[in-house]
C-alpha cells in the first residue's frame, strides 16, 4: 500500500491575473507620472526636420509626422484619458450608489421612475450618448466627463439596487432595525460591505470602458481635437505613416492595450 499524501494546496491571497493587471496599470501610471520628469520635453514643440525620425535621447520613442516627440505626447495622453475616465467613474459611481440605495430602500414610485430612466439610457448606444452630450457641452474634456458619467452610472445603479434589495430583505437587517439602528448604520454595516467589492470591480471596468470610448471617438475625429495629445487621435494621425514609422504608431497602441488589459485583469479576477 503506497500512501501518497495530497500536497497542501492553499489559495493565494491575490491570483496571478490580478498581480499582472496591477503591474500593468502601475507601469502605465508611472510612465504618465514620471515620464516628463525623467526625460524633460514639450509634447507640442514641432520640428519638421525630424518628422518621423527614429528615437534619440530627447525623444525615446521617436517623432511623429510633425516632428513632435511621441514619448512626450504619449505621457500627456496617458494623463488626459485616465483623469477624465476616473472623474467620470467617480461621479457615476457615487450617483449610481446613492440612487441605487435610495431606489431599493424607498421602493414605490421613486424606484420605478429611476429604473425606467436607467433602462431608457441603457437602450441608447453609449458612444452615441457621449456624442450628443459632447455637442451640447462646451469644452471637450468637460463634455466627455458629463457624457461618460451619464452612460456609466446605470451599471452602478443596477448593481447597487439589486444587492441592496437583497441585503435589506435579510434577517440581519431586520434584527438591526428591531434593535433600533437607523438607515445610516444599516448602510455602513450591512449594505456597503456587501457592495464594496462589486463597486470596485465595476469601477475598474468602467474606467476601461471610458478610456476606450475617449480613444474610439478620438480615432474617428469626433472626440478630442488636434493638437491635444490623445490616444485615439495619435493612432489615427500616425496611421498613414505605419510603413515609415511603425514604432510611432505602435507606441499609443501598446500603451492603450496595456492600460485596458491591466484594468480588465484587475477587475475580472475577483476572489470567488
Amino acid at each position, binding site marked *: *500500500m*503506497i*500512501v*501518497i*499524501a*495530497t500536497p*497542501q*494546496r*492553499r489559495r493565494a491571497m491575490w491570483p496571478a491575473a490580478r498581480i499582472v493587471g496591477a503591474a500593468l496599470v502601475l507601469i502605465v501610471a508611472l510612465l504618465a507620472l514620471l515620464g516628463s520628469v525623467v526625460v524633460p520635453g514639450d509634447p507640442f514643440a514641432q520640428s519638421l526636420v525630424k518628422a518621423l525620425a527614429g528615437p534619440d535621447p530627447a525623444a525615446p520613442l521617436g517623432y511623429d509626422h510633425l516632428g513632435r516627440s511621441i514619448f512626450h505626447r504619449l505621457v500627456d495622453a496617458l494623463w488626459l484619458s485616465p483623469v477624465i475616465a476616473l472623474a467620470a467613474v467617480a461621479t457615476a459611481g457615487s450617483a449610481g450608489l446613492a440612487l441605487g440605495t435610495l431606489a431599493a430602500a424607498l421602493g414605490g414610485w421613486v424606484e420605478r421612475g429611476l429604473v425606467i430612466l436607467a433602462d431608457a439610457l441603457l437602450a441608447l448606444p453609449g458612444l452615441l450618448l457621449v456624442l450628443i452630450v459632447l455637442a451640447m457641452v462646451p469644452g471637450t474634456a468637460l463634455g466627455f466627463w458629463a457624457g461618460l458619467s451619464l452612460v456609466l452610472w446605470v451599471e452602478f445603479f443596477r448593481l447597487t439596487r439589486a444587492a441592496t434589495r437583497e441585503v435589506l430583505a*435579510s*434577517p*440581519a437587517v*431586520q*434584527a*438591526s432595525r*428591531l*434593535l*433600533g*439602528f437607523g438607515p445610516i*448604520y444599516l448602510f455602513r*454595516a*450591512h449594505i456597503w*460591505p*456587501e457592495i464594496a467589492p462589486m463597486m470596485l470591480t465595476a469601477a475598474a471596468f468602467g474606467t476601461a470602458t471610458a478610456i476606450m470610448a475617449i480613444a474610439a471617438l478620438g480615432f474617428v475625429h469626433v472626440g478630442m481635437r488636434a493638437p491635444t495629445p490623445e490616444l485615439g487621435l495619435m493612432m489615427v494621425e500616425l496611421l498613414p505613416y505605419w510603413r515609415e514609422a511603425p514604432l510611432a504608431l505602435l507606441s499609443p497602441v501598446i500603451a492603450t492595450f496595456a492600460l485596458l488589459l491591466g484594468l480588465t485583469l484587475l477587475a475580472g479576477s475577483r476572489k470567488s
Partner: protein
Amino acid sequence: MSLLKAEDVTVLDGGAPLLQPLSLHLDPGEPLVILGETGSGKSLLAQALMGTLPPELTARGRVAIAGRVLDTGSPDRFRGLWGREIGVLPQEPWLSLDPLMRARAQVAETHALVRGLPRGEAAARAQADLAALGLAGAERRYPHELSGGMAQRVAIAAARAGGGRIVIADEPTKGLDAGRRDDVASLLLSEMGDTGGLLVITHDLALARRLGGRLIVLRSGAVVEQGPSRHVFAAPQDAYTREFLAADPENWSARTPWAGMEPAVVSARDLAVSRGGRSLFAGISLRIAPGRIFGVTGPSGCGKSSLGDALLGLIPPDRGTVTRRPGDHPHAMQKLYQDPVAAFPRKRSIGQTLADTVAVSGGNSADVDGLLDRLGLDPTLLGRRPGAVSGGELQRLSLLRVLLRSPSFVFTDEPTSRLDPISQARVIRLLTEISEKDGVALMLVSHYAALIRNTADTVLSLDAAGTAAISEPATFGTPVAEALT
C-alpha cells in the same frame, strides 16, 4: 460481506489531527449512524470516506469499497465511485437540485450520464424511480413547485440512479419538522432495503433512534462509544453519551405550571394573518406575561413564525389588534432567529456589532463582559466574524445582543432547530433562566412538540389548516376555553 470497510481513517489539518484513527464497516441492510455534536468531526469522516475533503485537509487510512482498496490520502481515486457505488444525499437537498430542471430530468440525467443509458430509457427509468417513491404526477414539476419532502425524495432518486448501493446522508433532517423527519427515516430505510448500505451522519437523536442499526458516538474527533443502537440508547456506557441522550427534549423534565395574572407584556386579540394571499390563521387571541414562556408549535408552513412577526409589527395583520404594555421603550420587543449566522452583519466582527448595539442602546461596554460571563461565552469569540463561530455559540451571542437592549419581550423563532442536542439544551436552559430572572416574556416557536411541551407555560398548537388550540402543558391537549379562537 461488508459493502464498505474503512480502516484507521484519520483526518489531519497540517499536523494536527481532527479525527483520530477510526475503523468501521457497513453491512447490507444494517444502517450505521454516526452521532455527534457540531464540531465532533462526523462530517469530516464522511468526507474522508467519499474523498471530498477540502484540499487543505489531509486524510490517511484505507477504504475498501466494491472489491477495491483505496487510500483516503489520494482522494482523486474516489471519483470513479461517486454515483456508481456511493450515492450522496447532501444536506438540505432542495438546494442541491437544479432549479431550472424538472424533477424527472434531474433523475434521468444520472441514468443517462452515469450509467450511460440512452435518453429514452433513462427517462423511462427515472419515471419508474419517481413513481416508486410516490412521486407519480410530480415528474414534470420544477423544484420550487415541490414541497421540501418531495424535493428530498427527488434528490434521493437522483443520488441512487447511478446504481450506487451505498447511500451516505449528511444531516438529512436538518431543519425538518417531526413529521417530515420520520418520513425521511422511513424513506432512507426502505431505499436501503436488505442489500443496500446506509451511512447517516446526524445529531438528531430521534432520527438515530428510528433508524436503529449500529451507532458510533463521536466527540472531538474520537469515538466515545459504539454498538447496536438499541443497546446504546437503552444503557449508554459513557458519561458523554448519557449527557447527549439526556439533552433530548423528550427526556427533559416538564416545567412547573404557572398560576397568576400579571399584566401582559404583549397581547393580541382576534388576530388574522395571511401570506402571499393565503390565509395562515384567523381569530387568535393571546396574552404573554413577564417571565413567562409562550410556546407555539405546529408543522412547517402553518404560520408559527408569521404569528411572532405580526406581534413584533414586522408584518401587518389582516385583522385584529396587537397591544404592547404601555411605558415600554420602543425597542423592547426583540427577535432571535432560526439561523443565527444570517442575523448578524456578515462582514463585521461580532465584537464590533455588539459594541454598536451597546452604543445605540446607550449602555456601557461592561454590560457585554457581564453577559458573556452569564451566557458562558469565551471573550475571544468577539474577534471573529459570524461565519466562523459555531451555531450554538452564535445563538447565545444573538441572545446577548438582544439582552443589551433590555427587552421586555423576545420572539424566539426556532432558535435551536439547527443546533445539536447539547447546544440546544444549553440555549433553551439559558432562555428559560433569563426569562425568569429578568422578567422577560418569551414566545418560543418550535416544530418540536416535546421541546415546547417541556419548556413553555402555555402552548399554542397550530395546524396546517390554520386551526389553533391553546393549552397549559399540565393539561396538554385539553384547550383552555377562555383563550380560544
